[in-house]
């Protein structure tokens, strides 16, 4: 089983987001991690590769600064890595780069998170699948293999559905597809020696442009209500907030 796992390189979930004067993310003091949903995809891929004597290749589209994040994925159990050397512009750009790499090999599965936690587009899995002419499943919360058939479950509003698909396919994953894996010392040591190939980006036209960023307006003070005065809370919700 040859699995390609696409990972994003995103600010740690507890990061307080700020922007610089020229409208870029202010990365001072920000720690970057593997996208939380991508982490689930990677964890399941490593398990499946273990069960099938397969291989996991991780792929990131990003500058040299993403290499520590890629090494972490190698430490978790990926066999080798590819970095497409380009600053991601938007979902379409990232998808086109992934497709170029995917076309070089016959991957049985292409897994990634359901969305990245920076640009939250939720589009890359669908774009990649359509460009490659493959079926896609997202948000995928279970993935098992039986020969060339995969059984999966997909989260839907108010529940989930079970699905079946033939390899190859693309899936955008989320929990509880697998338990996150934390790299151990051996993994970290061996990751240093695993191959990390850097490839140039393919030329594509940029289709959207990010002109400006803004933060949500600051919250006003929280109005406190005494715990034995719920009549007052109901009145406030009705008359002041007008939400019930």
């Amino acid at each position, binding site marked *: 089983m040859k699995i390609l796992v696409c990972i994003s390189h995103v*600010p740690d*979930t*507890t990061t307080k*987001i700020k*922007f610089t004067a020229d409208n870029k993310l202010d990365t001072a003091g920000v720690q970057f991690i593997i996208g939380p949903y991508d982490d689930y995809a990677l964890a399941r891929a490593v398990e499946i590769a273990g069960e099938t004597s397969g291989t996991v290749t991780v792929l990131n589209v990003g500058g040299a600064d993403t290499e520590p994040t890629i090494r972490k994925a190698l430490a978790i159990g990926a066999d080798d890595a590819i970095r497409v050397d380009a600053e991601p512009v938007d*979902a*379409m750009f990232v998808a086109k780069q992934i497709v170029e790499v995917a076309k070089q090999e016959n991957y049985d599965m292409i897994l990634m998170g359901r969305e990245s*936690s*920076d*640009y*939250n*587009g*939720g*589009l*890359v899995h*669908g*774009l990649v*699948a*359509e460009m490659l002419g493959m079926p*896609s*499943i997202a*948000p995928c919360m279970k993935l098992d293999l039986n020969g060339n058939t995969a059984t999966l479950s*997909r*989260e*839907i*509003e*108010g*529940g*989930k*559905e*079970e*699905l*079946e*698909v*033939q390899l190859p396919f693309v899936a*955008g994953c989320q*929990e*509880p597809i697998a338990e996150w894996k934390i790299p151990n010392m051996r993994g970290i040591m061996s990751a240093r020696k695993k191959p990390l190939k850097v490839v140039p980006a393919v030329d594509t036209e940029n*289709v*959207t*442009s*990010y002109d400006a*960023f803004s*933060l*949500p307006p600051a*919250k*006003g003070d*929280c*109005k*406190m*209500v005494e*715990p034995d005065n*719920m*009549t007052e*809370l*109901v009145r*406030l*919700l009705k008359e002041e*907030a007008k*939400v019930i």
Partner: protein
Amino acid sequence: MSVLVFVEADNGAIKKSSFEAVTCGAKLGDVTAVAMGDINAGELEALGKYGAKKVLHAADSRLNDGVIAATALLVAEAAKKEGAQTVLMARSSLVDAVAARVAVKLNVPVASNVVELPDTSAGFKVKRGVFTGKAFAEVSIPGDSRVITLAKNAVAPEEVGGTAAVEAFEVNFSDADFGVKRTSVHKQEGDILLPEADLVVSAGRGLKGPENWGMIEELAKTLGAATACSKPVSDMDWRPHHEHVGQTGIKVSPNLYIAVGISGAIQHLAGVSSSRVIVAINKDPEAPFFKAADYGVVGDAFDVVPKLIEALKASN
């Protein structure tokens, strides 16, 4: 501008978020809606009230299964037929993947999670939610056509009182379009769907165990709200996964979000902070949720929630 809006139904009834999308579309131009599978005829006509001029209905029952590839082909074919410049859809568990595939089929740009009416005064600009609700981005989409997906509550549904002609619509699907087979569905029936809900009552680890959810359900029922929970609660199987909200769960933006016994960790807030009004009930006065909330009650949930239910019932 010619606008195609993909509308989704649940149990034969059009979703509220789809009416939001039709309203948004009608503010941008002439709307044709496209719908699939079994939907009540009256529901399709009701799209006219929100501004749709025409409804294309693909009754093919295979589309009831919500297969991503087939749905994308349907929407792309409808967009071609109508010469749509903007394809609009309300975000859902199906739509992100569909929108992406439609954009590739039509060879047009795509932007998802759009949080307000696009600005068409000069070109086409959208405001998107980014960094998991912690920021917004203004994005220019050049060219004549595009696909966008709308976040929940981005545009309030508005009845403008027109009528829509419903037309049957057929697409030549191949077997490959239905390559993903649905083998079973597990769905809680009768509940208000969390992503669609206007009011949400959510509870966390402070409730101590699944046996204590009775009062949360009663509070939700009294309000006509959906129920939700924090991640540890679904991780421990106290509640089903589809109720888990936050950065790694569902993102909601209801008019009212009541958080009971939830600390307000940044990852939880990431999924709920765009709610219009937030009430936090927590026994710890230092709980971070109070910094994100509009109204706060410092108290024991087991004491406060029954009193709140009583006060709500008395006020009805």
